[in-house]
């Protein structure tokens, strides 16, 4: 099994719902957004285009972050291809941050709060799961998958722009969309073979 995601750029309206759902699920500190939305505009008035591109860890089949990690903290699960960080092994050398072409990794340097009044109860409870001085990233919500749920970002997408499934199953929804709707990967020339595919906005 190879878990992956298809993101339909025609459906995405750039509402940041995935970003907020991810932050709420993982309780990440300011500056850490495992799922983020990149916006690009190009062209000259009146021929202007705007695109919202949700970006997360691509859970590459050939993850460059795992390759450069000196401690083995960055790992890829053999059973489903999920790339994750074993925080207890991480030394915070940031080699993985340098090697990730998708900007999916965040070094937990300064322990900042959102508000000057310090942490509220919700933050206290969720921040406890995050170590200082290590690198963190999206893990396709492993804890939710174990409970039979899909990742928080796709569960919360109101436009159904994110579809989660098994890329190795030719009958899965993700495989069908990639096959029939022209799914493509970001930066395929780097040889990372991402497990996150995008469907073109103009189709």
């Amino acid at each position, binding site marked *: 099994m190879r878990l992956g995601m298809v993101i339909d*750029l025609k459906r995405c309206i750039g509402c940041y719902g995935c970003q907020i759902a991810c932050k709420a699920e993982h309780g990440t500190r*300011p*500056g850490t957004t495992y799922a*983020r939305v*990149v*916006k*690009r505009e*190009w062209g000259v008035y009146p021929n202007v285009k705007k*695109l919202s*591109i949700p*970006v997360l860890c691509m859970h590459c089949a050939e993850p*460059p972050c795992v*390759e*450069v*990690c*000196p*401690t*083995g*903290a960055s790992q890829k699960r053999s059973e489903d291809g999920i790339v994750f960080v074993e925080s207890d*092994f*991480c*030394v*915070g*050398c*940031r*080699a993985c*941050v*340098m*090697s*990730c*072409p*998708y*900007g999916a990794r965040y*070094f*937990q*340097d*300064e322990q*900042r709060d959102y508000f*000057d009044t310090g942490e509220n109860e919700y933050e206290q409870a969720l921040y406890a799961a995050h*170590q*200082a*001085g*290590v*690198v963190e990233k999206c893990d396709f919500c492993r804890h939710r998958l174990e409970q039979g749920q899909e990742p928080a970002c796709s569960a919360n997408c109101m436009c159904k722009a994110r579809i989660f499934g098994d890329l190795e199953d030719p009958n899965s929804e993700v495989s069908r969309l990639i096959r029939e709707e022209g799914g*493509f*990967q*970001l*930066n*395929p*020339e*780097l*040889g*990372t073979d991402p497990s996150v595919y*995008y469907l*073109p*906005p103009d189709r």
Partner: protein
Amino acid sequence: MGERIDWRTGETMAFPDRLDLQRQDLSQVYRPQREWIDGRGLLIVIAHFFSGIGAGAWLWSTLYDFPMGQALAIGCVIGLSGVAHMAFLGRWDRFWRMLRRPHQSWISRGIWSIGIFGLAAVASMLPAVRDSAAAPVVLGLSVLAATAILLYEGFVYAASRAIPFWRTRLLPVLYIAYGLRGGAALLLAVAAFGGSGFDVRAVEVIKLWVVVSTAVLILLYLVSSTRSGGAARESVAQLVAGRISPAFYGGTVLAGIVAPIALALSRDALGLPELVLLGAIGLASLVGDFYVKYCIVKAGVYVPLVAAEGVGSPG
């Protein structure tokens, strides 16, 4: 420094620097790397500078049998570089874990090299070992480890698939050349300012040759980078005409290349004592050696997620 509104009081608050930069970076096509240069990230450049010149100094000192230079080399690699490496890590208390993957990671290979160098170099200087039959083996091991230190640094950067400016075979060659010239520069400076028992003239000729060849290498590196895609071209643009150009022209070109050559060529006109002149050449070179590493690391930008004119195009 950016600003944001406190939703409870309505007051304008200063937005944190790092987060402000991060937000700014995410909106750019070419996102600069910051983790290995800004704030505590500068320590990795300092660590690589000291381990490079230390390893180079060890090789020259061993070649010319200069014990003071050897002691200094150990101080640079184990002392200064070691401390900078540890201070750079987010969790230095787990540093031993970096020994686990020499089969795959260049950082791991580097830590092994530094460790073996420390043990072998210190052992080779002990009288008990120096006078024993094991002396050539221990010294040979230290020379091999010093060579590995020179080798690994460039590969640490070249292993980053996301930063095209670093991903070239020329970078490790450049780091080796700069480590060797940095080591020679260190010995020149030491010999000039109080060192003894070392024939500086022997190194001076080699030093000048290395200065000229590193200048050629830098030029080759920049020219080849302009042919390695948009992100690498952006890095070169930032070096020669952008945000890093003051450090590049002042540190790398002026202090590191022009000053050593100019001082060497105008020695008769200046009329300075030879040792002072060589010391000045050494110090200028050391400044240049630091800045070349600083500039290369600072100029690293990521391959764009989305090209300026659409999605999924190679950068």
